[in-house]
């Protein structure tokens, strides 16, 4: 019949050309160059700390490290970190289980309430306690204040995971004869383990980095000792050496956490739609006990500071609030924080765009370099920038630019995360479409990537700004002479026991901090319904 004219069967593959497939290509230098510069910039604090610590000679550095006082300091800091983390795990996981897996009444309100302590800066909480009970100075006070301020770091991610876990696993475990509580501990919590580890890491880093609370509560852990040693003597080598030691500890903890996460097996086998988890029914007695527990935590973390703050405000009112000082302090806080957020986001742009788009080795290295600040306590960065300022740029030491740059380095990890997540909103596919429709690489950036990312980056910049406003140690060390921010005024007044005078500053700071906390809580727990086909993924918003 037909002679199959067009049937063109190809018998064998043509010989493969010698050139092998290339790896991820290096993106446009217009982004790579600034990104590398930013990464180098972010490493300034570590570099200067090493230089400054080594200045006096390594023998002297070892002599400082070898002191018995140093060993005491390390043990004290680690013990506080461990105990705070442990208490946070107990409170955070307990509350998360209550609001996600039981029929406790008022679960939604409790969820918001439980996240709210994040809005209380630790030094404001410390101010509330020390101004009421002078006995709260020392270990127990620090443990109480830091636990109450940081347990939401465990509560939020664990609650989010418990809400989303594969309930199928639990049902299988139950059907295989495991009791409800046993299933919860052996199956459900196992799935939440990465979230618990990540939350614990945040708590541990927060505790080691916290400067305001431990200083006001006069408990000698790393940050307070470094600060006093820096202030008390002209020899700044001990401060630098101890700061370096603290960095080693925080980095070690960070690395340990990411290692443990790498090994966690949390694969979901097979497809299927998640069903909402089944809720455990609480008896009346259990309900009362649970509500009482929630009440105690909320009362200590929120109620107590609120009552104390109101009390001092009222007492201060009779003496008259010093508006002449409050307004300029608020003004300069806004000014330097806005600048800090702007510079942080500008620096984060090239790094974040590249991180969202390219898997080139150089890009990964730059991104990780900018995350270095994540494990660096604010006080340490501030100290390093003091050394850097004095030695390299004395012209701007104790001037606004150096403070702004320090803010930018401190909050660069948060800014990079926001930029990266926002840029990821426009998929590479969408950008390819734009190119096939005639837009150049830069044209795509202008007409697609930036318009899609702009709202997210804007919100991120606002968050960074609010975080800058609460910042204490860097502001204390690097502010221009004579300039005060809300945080430094609260610090100065509290340090000399002028509690009523400190109250207005504390109140303003709490109000400022409530806004990002509510945003964070809504996103993390998914109180806001997902809109549209491509909802932005909530990303860790503050550090």
């Amino acid at each position, binding site marked *: 019949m037909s002679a199959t004219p067009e049937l063109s069967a190809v018998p064998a593959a043509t010989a493969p050309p010698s050139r*092998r497939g290339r790896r991820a290509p290096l993106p446009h230098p217009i982004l790579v160059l600034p990104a590398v510069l930013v990464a180098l910039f972010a490493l300034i604090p570590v570099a200067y700390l090493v230089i400054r610590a080594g200045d006096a000679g390594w023998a002297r550095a070892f002599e400082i490290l070898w002191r018995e006082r140093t060993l005491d300091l390390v043990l004290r800091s680690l013990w506080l970190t461990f105990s705070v983390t442990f208490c946070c795990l107990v409170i955070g996981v307990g509350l998360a289980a209550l609001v996600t897996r039981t029929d406790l009444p008022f679960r939604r309100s409790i969820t918001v309430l439980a996240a709210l302590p994040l809005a209380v800066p630790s030094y404001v909480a410390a101010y509330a306690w020390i101004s009421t009970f002078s006995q709260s100075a020392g270990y127990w006070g620090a443990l109480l204040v830091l636990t109450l301020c940081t347990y939401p770091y465990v509560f939020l991610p664990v609650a989010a995971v418990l809400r989303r876990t594969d309930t199928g696993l639990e049902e299988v475990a139950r059907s295989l004869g495991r009791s409800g509580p046993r299933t919860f501990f052996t199956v459900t919590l196992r799935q939440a383990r990465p979230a618990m580890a990540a939350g614990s890491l945040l708590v541990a880093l927060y505790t080691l980095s916290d400067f305001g609370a431990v200083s006001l509560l006069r408990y000698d852990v790393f940050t307070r000792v470094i600060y006093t040693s820096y202030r008390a003597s002209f020899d700044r080598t001990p401060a630098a050496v101890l700061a370096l030691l603290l960095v080693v500890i925080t980095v070690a903890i960070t690395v340990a956490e990411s290692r443990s996460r790498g090994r966690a097996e949390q694969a979901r086998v097979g497809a299927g739609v998640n069903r909402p988890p089944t809720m455990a029914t609480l008896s009346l007695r259990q309900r009362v006990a649970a509500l009482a527990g929630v009440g105690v935590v909320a009362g200590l973390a929120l109620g107590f500071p609120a009552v104390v703050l109101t009390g001092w405000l009222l007492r201060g009112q009779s003496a008259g609030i010093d508006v002449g000082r409050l307004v300029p302090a608020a003004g300069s806080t806004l000014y330097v924080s806005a600048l800090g957020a702007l510079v942080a986001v500008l620096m984060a742009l090239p790094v974040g765009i590249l991180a969202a788009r390219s898997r080139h080795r150089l890009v990964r290295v730059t991104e990780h370099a900018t995350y270095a600040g994540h494990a660096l306590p604010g006080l340490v960065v501030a100290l390093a920038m003091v050394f850097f300022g004095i030695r390299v740029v004395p012209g701007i030491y104790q001037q606004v630019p150096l403070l702004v740059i320090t803010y930018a380095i401190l909050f660069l990890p948060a800014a990079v995360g926001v930029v990266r997540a926002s840029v990821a909103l426009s998929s590479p596919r969408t950008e390819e479409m734009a190119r096939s429709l*005639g837009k150049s690489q830069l044209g795509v950036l202008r007409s697609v990537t930036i318009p899609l990312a702009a709202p997210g980056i804007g919100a991120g910049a606002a968050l960074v700004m609010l975080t800058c406003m609460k910042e204490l140690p860097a502001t204390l060390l690097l502010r221009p002479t004579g300039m005060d921010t809300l945080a430094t005024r609260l610090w100065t007044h509290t340090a000399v026991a002028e509690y009523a005078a400190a109250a207005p500053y504390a109140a303003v700071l709490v109000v400022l901090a409530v806004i990002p906390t509510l945003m964070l809580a809504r996103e993390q727990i998914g109180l806001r319904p997902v809109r549209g086909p491509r909802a932005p993924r909530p990303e860790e918003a503050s550090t």
Partner: protein
Amino acid sequence: MSELRVTGLYKAFGDTPVLRGVDLSVAQGSLTAVLGPSGCGKTTLLRVIAGFERPDAGSVRLGDVEVCGRGRTVPPEKRRVGVVPQEGSLFPHLSVAENVGFGASRRAPGRATRISTLLELVGLAGFEQRRPHELSGGQQQRVALARALLPGPEVVLLDEPFSALDAGLRHAVRDDVRDALHEVGATALLVTHDQEEALSIADEVAVMRDGLVVQHGTPEQVYLEPADLAVARFVGEAIVLEARGDASMASTALGELKLRGSAERGATGQVMIRPEQVHLVKVGDGIPATVQRAVFHGHDTTVHLSVSPPMVDAVELVCRIQGALPEASEVAIRVDGAVAWFPR
């Protein structure tokens, strides 16, 4: 619109070759479907033509222009190649009209008219101000097609554009897209793993396997005269029988069958019969067969039969019938039309 010609394309990701020397040409104004299982390299082929991937060797010509070849690569924005991706990939921050008009400068004369003409062409007149998330999947695909057509591309590439749609919608959107492409006389290349889609929509079908085009022909050729047995089975259901050739005939367990083409006298090989060629007939009028089981599909019924000719092993085969099932399990069959011949 111009002719698309791809020669000797080679592309590897790391050490894994994905395209191993692809040759393909699409005549001006025609629609060719690239059909292949997932992982055969068809999407990579499309991305190379669009300019999103650079091949390791080979060339791509659009009309007289070599857009990628020896040392020269035209960037995607200069190629005048329209792309309709799998998920539509509409710009979420732009309205339907802005999406369609994306490929033309805002001040280009007649832009607005062109947008509404194209929206009308794809059946979405009046949707100008909608946002992508307010559209159904099928509507998003239609907008994506209008957007690809607006700059007047040389070639339109469609990457499994219907696979994300549910079955009922798929047919309607598929027909509309084909009509729209014909209306503008587009040279189009459509990538799919759905053989029914490829056969029904395309002027020509190129079957890909392991990074190579193994057959390129009209849908009828690919279906009835497949290049090899693997293509035969991939393109549709196939009954394969051992056979001995004799010029234009072959003798098989089902008797003498007429061949497409011819076989050497006495050569051994296999023949491939499509189920539609097998008909149930009155007992006595054909080869006796036994009904093993029947599967009812609504529009037709698949009957699994077994034929036990004398002296040879039993043969299993299927046929499709419409209407009621034969009541007796003993039936007879007849094979109509010529069958494909694969010599050993």
